C-alpha cells in the first residue's frame, strides 16, 4: 500500500480513540455521605433585637426587628449556622470551579455564615439602595475594606488561607457574618433544623469538626463507608452570648 495509507491508519486510530475518550461519561462523585444533627445543652442565650433605626429604609423592612444571630436555635434544641467540615485525614484537593455568592439585603448578610474552600471564587452582591462597606477582619489573610454604593457591581474575592473570617459593615455595624474558609471541599452548614449533609466523601477515616461562632469547636473521628454515615454534635451553650 502507498505511503499515505501507512500514515492514514494511525491517524484514523488516533481519531477513533480520541472520539471514544470524548464520549466516555464523566466520573460521578463516588464515595459516602456524612449527615447529622447539631444540638445544644444548657439554656440558650437571649438574642437581642437589632436596632436599625440608623437606616430607616432597612428598619421598615424588618418589623418586628430581627434578632442577633450569634446562637440561632431551632426546634428540638437544634443549632443553626454551625459549620461542619473535614478538618484532617484527607489529602488536599483543588477548590471547585463553581463560585460562592454572598448577599447584602435589607442591611443583613445572606447567608449569615458562608462556608467555602480556600481559593474558591467569592462574589459579594448588594441589592440595597443604601451604601454598604464590606470589611472582612481576617487574621491570616490580607485585610481589606471596600465600600459598595447602590447598584455597584459585585466584588470578587478569593481567600488563600483557611480561616473563619468575621465580616462586617461599618456603616451598619449590626451587619455581621462569617466567611468560613476551610481547606476541604467537604463541608456543610446546618439548616434551621440543625441538619447538615456532606456528600461525595471518599471512604476512609477522618476528623470531623463542628464550628459555632460563639463556642469552641468540637471534633470527632468518623469512618466513612460508601453508604451514609451519621455524626451528631452537641454544644453546651451559655445563658449569655455576651
Amino acid at each position, binding site marked *: 500500500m502507498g505511503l499515505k495509507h501507512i500514515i492514514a491508519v494511525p491517524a484514523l486510530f488516533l481519531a477513533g480513540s480520541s472520539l471514544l475518550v470524548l464520549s466516555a461519561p464523566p466520573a460521578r462523585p463516588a464515595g459516602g455521605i456524612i449527615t447529622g444533627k447539631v444540638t445544644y445543652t444548657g439554656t440558650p442565650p437571649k438574642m437581642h433585637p437589632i436596632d436599625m433605626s440608623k437606616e430607616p429604609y432597612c428598619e421598615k423592612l424588618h418589623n418586628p426587628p430581627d434578632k442577633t444571630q450569634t446562637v440561632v436555635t431551632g426546634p428540638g434544641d437544634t443549632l443553626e449556622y454551625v459549620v461542619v467540615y473535614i478538618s484532617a485525614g484527607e489529602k488536599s484537593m483543588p477548590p471547585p470551579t463553581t463560585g460562592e455568592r454572598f448577599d447584602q439585603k435589607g442591611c443583613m448578610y445572606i447567608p449569615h455564615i458562608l462556608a467555602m474552600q480556600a481559593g474558591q471564587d467569592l462574589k459579594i452582591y448588594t441589592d440595597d439602595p443604601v*451604601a454598604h462597606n464590606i470589611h472582612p477582619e481576617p487574621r491570616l489573610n490580607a*485585610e481589606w475594606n471596600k465600600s459598595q454604593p447602590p447598584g455597584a457591581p459585585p466584588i470578587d474575592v478569593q481567600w488563600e488561607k483557611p480561616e473563619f473570617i468575621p465580616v462586617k459593615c461599618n456603616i451598619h455595624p449590626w451587619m455581621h457574618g462569617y466567611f468560613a474558609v476551610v481547606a476541604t471541599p467537604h463541608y456543610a452548614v446546618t439548616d434551621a433544623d440543625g441538619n447538615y449533609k456532606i456528600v461525595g466523601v471518599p471512604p476512609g477515616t477522618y476528623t470531623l469538626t463542628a464550628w459555632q461562632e460563639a463556642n469552641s469547636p468540637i471534633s470527632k473521628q468518623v469512618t466513612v463507608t460508601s453508604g451514609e454515615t451519621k455524626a451528631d454534635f452537641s454544644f453546651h451553650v451559655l445563658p449569655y452570648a455576651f
Partner: protein
Amino acid sequence: MHDAQPAVHHHTAPEGFIRKYVFSVDHKVIGLQYYGLALVAVFVGMVLSWLMRLHLGWATLAIPGLHLLSSAGAPGNVMTPEYYLSLMTMHGTIMVFFVLTNAPLAGFGNYFLPIQVGAADMAFPRMNMMSFWVTFTAFIVLMLSFFVGDGPPLSGWTAYATLSSVGGASGPGEATGQTFWAISIALFCIGQLLGSLNFISTTLDLRTKGMTLARLPLSTWAWFVTSCIGLLAFADLLPACILLILDRSFGTSFFNPAGMVLNGEVAKYSGGSPLLWQHLFWFFGHPEVYIAIIPAFGIVSHILAASARKPLLGGTRVLIGCMIALAFLSYVVWGHHMFLSGLNPFSAILFSVPTLIITIPATIAVLMWIGTVYGARLRFNTACLFCLGFISVFVSGGISGFFLAQPSIDIYLHATYFVVAHFHFVMAVAAIFGIFAGTYFWMPKMIGRMMNETLGKWHFWLTFVGVYCIFMPMHYLGLAGNVRRYAAFTDNFLVPLIPVHKFITIAALFTGAAQFIFLFNLFYTRFWGPKAPDNPWEATSLEWSTTSPPPFDNFGGRQMVVNHGAYEYGVEGPKDYIMQTDPVKVAGD
C-alpha cells in the same frame, strides 16, 4: 545707574543645560521652577476639586476613566466615599502646601527678593537649589500615593489622629497612602526650612548700598516676615510628621490612647493622645494660613501703589506693622481650631480673644488699601484688577472670621461649609488672586514678554464673579448646618440643600474652565508675546532698574545704590514717579 561702582563678579554664569536650567543655583531659575511646580500642582488640585464637586452635585454620576486616576477604586466609574475623601485629602494637601506656600513665597520670593534688595543671588545658592529639589521630591512622593495600595489617604489635609495613626485598620488609603503623605510633608518641611534660612539671611545681609529696612519694598518685607513664620512653623510640623511615621510604622503610640477597638480586637496601643497631634499640627497649621496670605499682602501692596500712582496710605510702615503683628499673633491662636475638641472649655475663651484681636491688624491693612485707592489715578490693568479683587475677597473671607472666632457661635458653625467658605475666601482665593496679580505684573520681567491684557481681563472677570458664585453660597449651606467632608448628603436635613451644591458645582466648572484662558495666555506670552521694556509699569523698585529678563547676576555687574523709598509715586515733574535708584535730586535732564 549714574555712579559707576566697581563691577562685582561673584560667580560666572554656568554652562550646559543641566547646570543652567535643572540643577541651577540661580535664584531666578529656582524661582521659575517653584512657580512651574505650583502651576502643575494647582491644575492637578483644581481637577480634583472638579471631581469632588461633580460627586457632591450628582452622587451617582459615572465619570469615564475615574478608575484610572487612582487606585482608590471606582466600581463602574462611580465615585466611592473613600475615593471622594482621598480626593479631598489630596486637594487640600496639594493646594495648601504645594500651591499657596510654593507660588507666592518660594516662587516670586526666590525670583524677586534678591533683585529687590539689590543682590546678585541668594545668600546660599546651593542651599536654595537643594530646597527646591527636596520640595520637588516631596511632590512626587505625594503623587505616588495615588497609585500605591488602595489609594491616597482619606484623613484630610489635617490628618487627624487616630484616623491617620493606626494604619489600615481605619480605612482604605490609610495602610500605605498615609505613610507616603507623612513622608512627603516631612520632606516639604525640610525644603521650606532651608528656604526660610535663605530668605531671612538674604534680606538681612545682602541689601545693597542705601537699601535700609525702611526702603525695602513691601513684597520683600512680606517674604521676610513669612520666612520668619515658616522657620518656626515647619520646625514644629517636621517632628509631628516623624512621630506620625513612628506611630504608623514602628509601633509607638504617641497619638493612640489605650482601649481602642480596631478590627474587632483591642489595639495594642496605650499612653497616647489624639489631642497631641491636633496641638502639634495646629501650632503649625495656623501660622501656615499666614504663610499663605502674607506674601499676597506684600505683592498686592507692591502692585497697588504702582497702579494707583500714589504712595500707600500710611507709607510702608503701617502695613509692615500689620504683617509683623499678624506674624506674632499667628502663634497664640492655634487653639481656635480646637474649641470643640475636648480641651478644657476655659481654654476656648483664652484662645478666642487673641483670635478676635487678629482682626485689628487685618482690618487696618484693608483700610490702608482702600484708603490708597481713594484719590488715586488707578491704571486698570489686569494686575491692578486682581489687587482690587483681592481686597474684596479678603474682606468677604475676613468677615466670616468674626463668627468662627467665637466659641459660642463655633458650636453651631464648626465643621460646616461656613468654615469651608471662610478659609477658601480668606486664604485660598485671596492668596490665589495675589499670585495672579503678581503673575500679570511680574511675568514681563520674568520671561521678558508682555502678557495679553484682553485675555487677562476676561480671565479676571470670569474668575472674580466665579469665585463669589462658588464660595458665597457655601456660607448659606453652613448656616443651614451643612456638615463638611461628607461624600454625599443622605441626612434629611441635608437633602434639600443638594440643589445649592449643584449650583456651586456648575459655577466651579465654569470658573475652573476660565483658568485655561490664563494658562493659554501664559504659554502664548512665553513664546509669542511682544517683547517687554525694562519698566513697563513705570514702577520704582529695583527689579525695574534692570533688563527684562535680568542677566545672570541681576544687574550686569553694576552695584545698585538706593536713594529713595520704594513707593515714591505721584510726584511733580516730567515723570510722576522716582525710582529707588534715581539720584537724590531729580535733575531735569
